[in-house]
């Protein structure tokens, strides 16, 4: 038996979480360092996974399989395809930056009670989320995936509710109440989705007699397992609903702006760049693979919802007065693109969507973390409270602009590649949808540039005058992310290489072929 690499990748952060949580109250610095070290070890393991994965090889690689709850046929079954590898790499890559960015976000407020250890808790929870997210990208057993899908809500709930942004949002001073509202909203939304998914998971077991993704998919592909049309559609909807909440897709999106607005910037990154990706990832892996016919049946509606998300999210971003909520709505627009790419059912669209998940993670992280640094300096999330920052903190403004340009998909930065692939892939099959989605590029420019103009340019506001520029730690967070954005914008090959075969498999699952170019088809 070979070394269980996938288990190790998820186990290291889990162990790290326990170790970090156990550090005594007085040793906060040790806890932070430990958390960072564990996240870096995870990154190293993820890098090994990335290298060991052979693009031309089997669909699922590095597989592990052990009996778990034998009576119900639940197995601890892991395996990764290219999509999983890419997302594991993204997660493992972002967490060290999240930890580094949140270095001082969870200091105990008063020194009175010596047993209160918020710092330890904060970093332990982050590592916990990392462990669960990574494992959920690896799980090929539906039940195991479901458990993780739900379990990751718990640490996220505490991260949102327990460690809110200290900057007030202006409209309501009662920050604690807003924060707990946001946390409960997040939890309830996702629990409802999870509940419906649980029904679908059980339904799937009743129909298929197994929880194993690979077994069911094989049985479906070979025709051994027939599903009645209505059964398949109902099960699909059960799964999709949960993923659409997590993703989030319009009109199930309203928890995201609250959660991202109230959470600290690193936690907001954790939500949108990492945890939400489980939703779109699961659409590709579970919805399309298990229910190919139902997926095609639902495609028109889902495409419309995705288009609404794109335009609606962008328009709402334009109308926001709060920096973090603006970024949240921008993310809703981007998730619309991802879903659009997945359900366009072309290889460009799906490769683009997968790439989009990675690129959006990096670009949002860059933008959100810089926004967090900005907000922590001024103590306000309102756009109107800023102005002329460029003059006093040029590096901060410059990195903010690059993050913004990535968000608006400027060529040369990574998101352009994925967005264009999604657009081309959609256009090839649904020209009208492609054109509507293309209008999103103007709106993206609008909200990004308006944000930049209002905060960074113009005369320097008195409150901003003494604002310091980025510190070394902060630059160490942002600079690598920006370097990565540029690198993947010019040379995305390392990622597309491992994604392409996975997408081909998915395309053959749904039995779709790319539309042929008009000229070729005519010959």
């Amino acid at each position, binding site marked *: 038996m070979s070394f269980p690499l996938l288990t190790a990748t998820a186990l290291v952060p889990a162990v790290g979480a326990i170790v970090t949580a156990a550090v005594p109250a007085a040793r906060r610095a040790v806890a932070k360092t430990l958390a960072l070290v564990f996240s870096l070890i995870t990154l190293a393991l993820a890098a090994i996974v990335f290298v060991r994965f052979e693009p031309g090889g089997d669909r699922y690689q590095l597989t592990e399989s052990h009996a778990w709850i034998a009576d119900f046929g639940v197995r601890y079954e892991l395996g990764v395809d290219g999509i999983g590898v890419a997302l594991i790499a993204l997660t493992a890559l972002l967490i060290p930056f999240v930890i580094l960015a949140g270095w001082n976000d969870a200091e105990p407020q008063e020194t009175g009670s010596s047993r209160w250890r918020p710092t330890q808790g904060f970093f332990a929870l982050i590592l916990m989320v990392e462990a669960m997210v990574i494992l959920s990208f690896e799980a090929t057993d539906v039940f195991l995936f479901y458990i993780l899908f739900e379990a990751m809500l718990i640490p996220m709930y505490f991260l949102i509710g327990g460690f809110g942004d200290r900057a007030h949002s202006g409209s309501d001073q009662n920050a604690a109440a807003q924060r707990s509202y946001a946390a409960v909203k997040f939890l*309830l*939304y996702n629990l409802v989705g999870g509940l419906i998914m649980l029904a679908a998971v059980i339904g799937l077991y009743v129909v298929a007699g197994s929880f194993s993704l690979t077994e069911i998919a094989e049985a479906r592909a070979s025709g051994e397992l027939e599903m009645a049309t209505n059964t398949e559609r109902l099960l699909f909807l059960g799964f999709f609903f949960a993923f659409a909440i997590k993703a989030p897709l319009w*009109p199930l*999106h*309203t928890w995201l702006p609250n959660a991202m607005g109230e959470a600290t910037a690193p936690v907001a990154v954790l939500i949108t760049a990492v945890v939400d990706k489980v939703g779109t990832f699961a659409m590709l892996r579970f919805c399309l693979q298990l229910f190919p016919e139902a997926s095609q049946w639902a495609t028109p509606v889902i495409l419309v919802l995705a288009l609404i998300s794109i335009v*609606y999210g962008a*328009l*709402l971003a*334009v*109308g*926001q007065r709060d920096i973090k909520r603006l970024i949240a709505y921008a993310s809703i627009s981007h998730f619309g693109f991802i879903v659009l790419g997945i359900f366009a059912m072309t*290889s*460009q669209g799906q*490769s*683009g969507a997968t790439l989009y998940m990675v690129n959006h993670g990096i670009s949002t992280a860059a933008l959100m973390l810089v926004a967090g640094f900005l907000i922590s300096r001024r103590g306000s999330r309102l756009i109107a409270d800023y102005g*002329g920052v*460029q*003059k006093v903190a040029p590096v901060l403004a*410059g990195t903010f602009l690059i993050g913004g*340009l990535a968000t608006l998909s*400027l*060529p*040369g930065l990574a998101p352009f*590649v994925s967005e*264009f*692939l999604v*657009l*081309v892939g959609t*256009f*090839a099959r649904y*020209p009208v949808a*492609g054109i509507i989605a*293309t*209008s999103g*590029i*103007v709106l993206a*420019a609008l909200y990004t*540039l*308006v944000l930049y*103009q209002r905060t*960074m*340019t*113009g*005369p320097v506001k008195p409150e901003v005058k003494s604002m310091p520029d980025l510190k070394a730690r902060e630059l160490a967070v942002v600079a690598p992310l920006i370097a990565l954005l540029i690198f993947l914008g*010019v*040379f*995305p*090959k390392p990622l*597309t*290489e491992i994604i*392409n075969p996975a*997408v*081909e498999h998915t395309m053959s699952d749904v039995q779709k072929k*790319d*539309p*042929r*170019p*008009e*000229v070729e088809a*005519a010959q």
Partner: protein
Amino acid sequence: MENLIALLVAAPLLGAAVLLCGGRRLDRSGHWLGTVLAAASFVIGVVLFLDMLGRSADDRALHQHLFSWIPVEGFQADIAFQLDQLSMTFVLLITGVGTLIHVYSIAYMEHDERRRRFFGYLNLFLAAMLLLVIADNYLLLYFGWEGVGLASYLLIGFWQHKPSAATAAKKAFLVNRVGDIGLSIAIMLMFTTFGTFAFGPVLSSVGETGEGTLTAIGLMLLLAACGKSAQVPLQSWLGDAMEGPTPVSALIHAATMVTAGVYLIVRSGAIFNAAPNAQLAVVVVGAVTLLFGAIVGCAKDDIKKALAGSTMSQIGYMILAAGLGPIGYVFAIMHLVTHGFFKAGLFLGAGSVMHGMNDEVDMRKYGGLRTYMPVTFVTFGLGYLAIIGFPGLSGFFSKDKIIESAFAKGGAEGWILGGVALLGAAITAFYMTRVMLMTFFGEKRWQPDAEGQPPHPHESPKSMTIPMVILAFGSVFAGGFFSIGDRFLNWLEPVTGYDHGHAPISAATVTGATVVVLLIGVFLAWAMYGRRPVPVTAPRGSLLTRAARRDLLQDDFNHVVLVRGGEHLTRSLVYVDHTLVDGVVNGTAASVGGLSGRLRKLQNGYARSYAVSMFGGTAVLIAVTLLMRAV
């Protein structure tokens, strides 16, 4: 030799990276680095040009494939370059004028504490623009296309502390993005039609698809060109873009970037040739903009905005020529090159005037400057003669050819287009004479600046005047050089093709007419601004003048319809999101809460009432059981 192509882009790109990441250490030397790297790019361009001249006309295109950019199933985008005669022309123009403007900026930006960054942005612009013209596929062209948009955004908004500059920068980027939708969709259409978007395969297989698709592609490309080249209806950003430092206006918003739309259309000539309707749209856009820009240029008192209107109008000529098909492609590019010389020269001259006049831009506050800045006067004057098409100078040759081509289009279309082009020439002569008279002639109308300092006009330093002199040299001789023996035509014809058309009137007649309308325009301007003193405050003016001062109300239209409308839309959507979408969810939560609140009342704590419910429940159960039995 082809390995040198990548270096064209690499040199300025390196400069941009070093200057923008280098920090304060480079503040004292950064501008030299930027200038040297721009010059290096020019030298590489010249080497490649000489090499190209050494080969036969059919064998001149060079290709370089660096690596595969986006390798996805069925979708191949490469980082690969193609350098043919058309690209070469642009490379020389961009790097040549670019280098001159780098030199000019050293002195012009001397007192700006962020000069290093300015040069970084300029280098970034050069890299993106070069990428745009040497890309061998539309997607890479799009990369450069957006790259120049970014550089333009950064440079227009260079003085970001001025809200007007920041707004102008944002506006330029947004309007350009609208155009970019066109380019995106055009590329997507190419992909679904041809399965590729590399120039070679696309342009050679145009014949295999229907005219409808080609018309759609053509119109989308035209939309893109309208955005980048400030053509109606996407022209509104160019006037505001004059908020940027003057060297930027000269390089980006006169000589190079704004001509990218012309490049795009000429490059895609094969598509337009096969889609007459798209071509017609191009011609209409060109003709309308030609007049639009000229009329706006007549009314502006801001010297840079008057020149911006003129730029719009001249690019209108180029687009018009490009829309004529093979008759006009060569002359569109020729006018583009000569325009690059004289318009850059005019802007640098304007910058030199502003430099000496405490950054005053209102021409009504100039006057009589010719004796104070002789070099500027002469170079500006030569640029002026060139742009109005004074016989023998550059603009004469290129513009005259375009007017001839317009007539040669044939039929009623030809007459209309030719007439419009002639009318445009007259208006050009009028507004440029106006600029000339208001700035350099008449009495001094100088006003003290905001701090009460009266201006002390003086000639600019050598590093500013030398580029102006070189450009003036080009303004005078380039046209003649290109036209003698049809040099330019022979150079470009292998790439763009050429067709004589059928001119209804002889070339000499056209030339004669051009000269006549030119003289009429000059005379009118002299009658209005030379003979009579120019008032310092602008008179109210006719309805047309007032409309033209406001860019023919197009901005007001945008403001009312797009900006206001958009604000209302977003505001109401925010409301809808909060009350309706979120309201449904919160409503569900509230009703569940309300229901449980009611149910809670049943738990009153009295043992007797619990007992009642127990008895009642048991009784009901028994009754149900018995009833079920009975049934």
